[in-house]
């Protein structure tokens, strides 16, 4: 390969995504200095399995961020997904069959409320998703307090979250791969995906070009809600039970993963590969910090510091001029 060709290949790669993957390699190297098991296939597969829960949630978050909006309802929509699917499991054989779709459908419903608020009522997404989060929390408090529902997950949920079918590849990772593939297809190959990018760049222009922007926004939020809830279903299967605070640790990592992957928080720019890199990066960082037995406070400080440092590397904008 000549230098010219090399330059062309490097020039085509998105600098943000390249940096994110570079950081992943650097993290693994730092980890392997500490213990050689960081490079073992078992450890890496285990990390990818843990990453797939965040990956599913971050996929929905990415679509919303591409619109130039944000979804702050992750914590309780995840909990709704987990808790409603386990509750459905308690209804008997039919409920067990319907558990997963029912959990996801509840998330889609909440996403629809946010979407209608953003698209038709023009409420800022930051505030309407907060309100939907509060409503979801209220619903779940009434649900657990009033009816004492079943909270253990169904066989199927456990199977897709913890089982593995071929060569020890975890099912959760396959699920993430399927959802990721669908997201890539949706964003790159459909009119819906084009419309999402167009709205993120300038909604006015997208509207004038004949895009039904409001319907696109509603669908995007519904997808995000459904994926958050599906993340909750997977988490409930992984832990074999659902709990109220199960979604709390996923709000900030989901946003951080999308942004570290080079997607502009202002919308309109970003690729799914970047989100994959961001998700793996965040999961590895959390794992390495806990394996090194750094105390919890230190983990928070390093976690925040690393996010800022990486954003300073490649997330900077132009000066206003």
């Amino acid at each position, binding site marked *: 390969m000549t230098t010219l060709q090399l330059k062309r290949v490097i020039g085509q790669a998105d600098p943000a995504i390249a940096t994110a993957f570079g950081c992943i390699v650097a993290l693994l190297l730092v980890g392997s200095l500490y213990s050689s098991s960081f490079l073992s296939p078992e450890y890496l597969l285990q990390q990818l399995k843990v990453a797939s829960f965040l990956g599913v949630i971050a996929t929905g978050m990415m679509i919303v961020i591409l619109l130039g909006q*944000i979804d*702050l309802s992750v914590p309780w929509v995840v909990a709704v997904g987990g808790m409603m699917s386990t509750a459905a499991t308690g209804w008997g054989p039919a409920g067990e069959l319907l558990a997963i779709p029912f959990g996801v459908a509840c998330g889609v419903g909440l996403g629809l*409320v946010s979407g209608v*608020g953003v698209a038709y*009522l*023009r*409420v*800022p997404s*930051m*505030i*309407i998703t*907060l*309100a*939907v*989060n*509060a*409503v*979801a*929390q*209220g*619903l779940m*408090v*009434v649900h657990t*307090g*009033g009816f004492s529902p079943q909270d253990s997950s169904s066989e199927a949920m456990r199977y897709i979250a913890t089982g593995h079918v071929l060569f020890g590849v975890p099912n959760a990772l396959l699920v993430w791969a399927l959802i990721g593939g669908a997201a890539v297809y949706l964003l790159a190959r459909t009119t819906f995906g084009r419309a999402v990018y167009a709205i993120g760049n300038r*909604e*006015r222009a997208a*509207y*004038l070009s004949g895009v039904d*922007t409001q319907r696109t926004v509603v669908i995007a939020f519904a997808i995000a809600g459904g994926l958050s809830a599906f993340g909750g279903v997977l988490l409930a299967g992984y832990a074999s039970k659902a709990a109220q*605070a199960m979604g*709390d640790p996923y709000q*900030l990592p989901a*946003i*951080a993963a999308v*942004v570290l992957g080079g997607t502009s*928080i*202002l919308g309109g720019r970003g690729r799914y590969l970047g989100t994959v890199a961001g998700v793996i990066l965040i999961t590895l960082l959390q794992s390495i910090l806990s394996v090194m037995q750094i*105390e*919890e*406070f*230190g*983990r*928070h*400080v*390093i*976690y*925040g*510091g690393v*996010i*800022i440092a990486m*954003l*300073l590397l490649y*997330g*900077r*904008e*132009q*000066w*206003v*001029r």
Partner: protein
Amino acid sequence: MNRGGPPEADRSDANATLSSVAPGLPESDWGYRLREQRDTLAAFVGFAVMFSIYIGNHPAGLTANVLTTASNKGVLLALVAMAQTFAVLTAGIDLSVGMVLVLANCLASYIVVGSGLTTALGVAGVLLTGLLCGAINGAIVIFGRLQPIVVTIATGAIYYGLALALRRVPGGDVNDSLAGALTGQLAGGVPASIVALLAVVIVVWLPFRRSVIGRAAYAVGSSEIAAYMSGVPVRRAKFVAYTLSGLLASMAGLFVTFITYSGEASAANGSTYTLYSIAAVVLGGVSLFGGSGSAIGAVFGALMFRTIGDLLFVFNLEPLWQPLFQGVVLLVAVCLGSARLFRIRNRLDLFS
């Protein structure tokens, strides 16, 4: 003026308009001022209505104790809401206010103790820490050229880590007499906390609003590019806004310490306060797009939000339903703002 019609009619038209405006000038001035403060006034009216319902149904009625309890809870949220207002006015956001509050709370439970002098030094130390946290946020947002939403999420994690380093388990102490004085009543049953809040508004907000920097913050929020082109000190305004946001958040943390007499590094508390601060700011008529609203509106928004939460108790509904009720009220309240859509004539204005 030159519309090609009969010139005389034109001139008389113009005269008529002039003569009708001239004596009415003071009136139109007042009308303008009222319109400018419309959102703040709406927040005040909303709070007054809610609070009347609350007091009207309270079993004890309007006593000094009921008022003090309500005031202490309200002032706490009002301080966080004011902190959020500074960042939101510049079209930014500060998602670390809750964590600065928690950090200030943990720090105060160590250093705001002992004699009068050490307590005073402790209070100064806590406020300086808040100021520093805000300054760091501002510096990263301005010189790092990053989006405030992700920056403050990340710095929030750092501040929370520091708080956790200070207080792994809840505990600590605070100067009793100072805490008692600030959360108690003054002569005549006036809650001391509401007076303290008034003092903060007079000492911090009003000078800011009337200064060049304050006006610059509004200008930056309306349009950063236009502000830059007009020679407004854009960076200084943003920096001061984020710094003051940190200061106000640390005041709220100090107040938490006075109420609980201890420090606790609770991530749940931190994120709850951050979320509530945004809700209060929106209820108080401060635009999340920046450039309009005032901290006084945010204060009434915070008081209103607190009263909504307390309404359930006076109506004897099950506490189980309180989170749902609060959520639904919040959802309805934020959707009320979309009434402005009825005034839109051109569909394109939807997307501006």
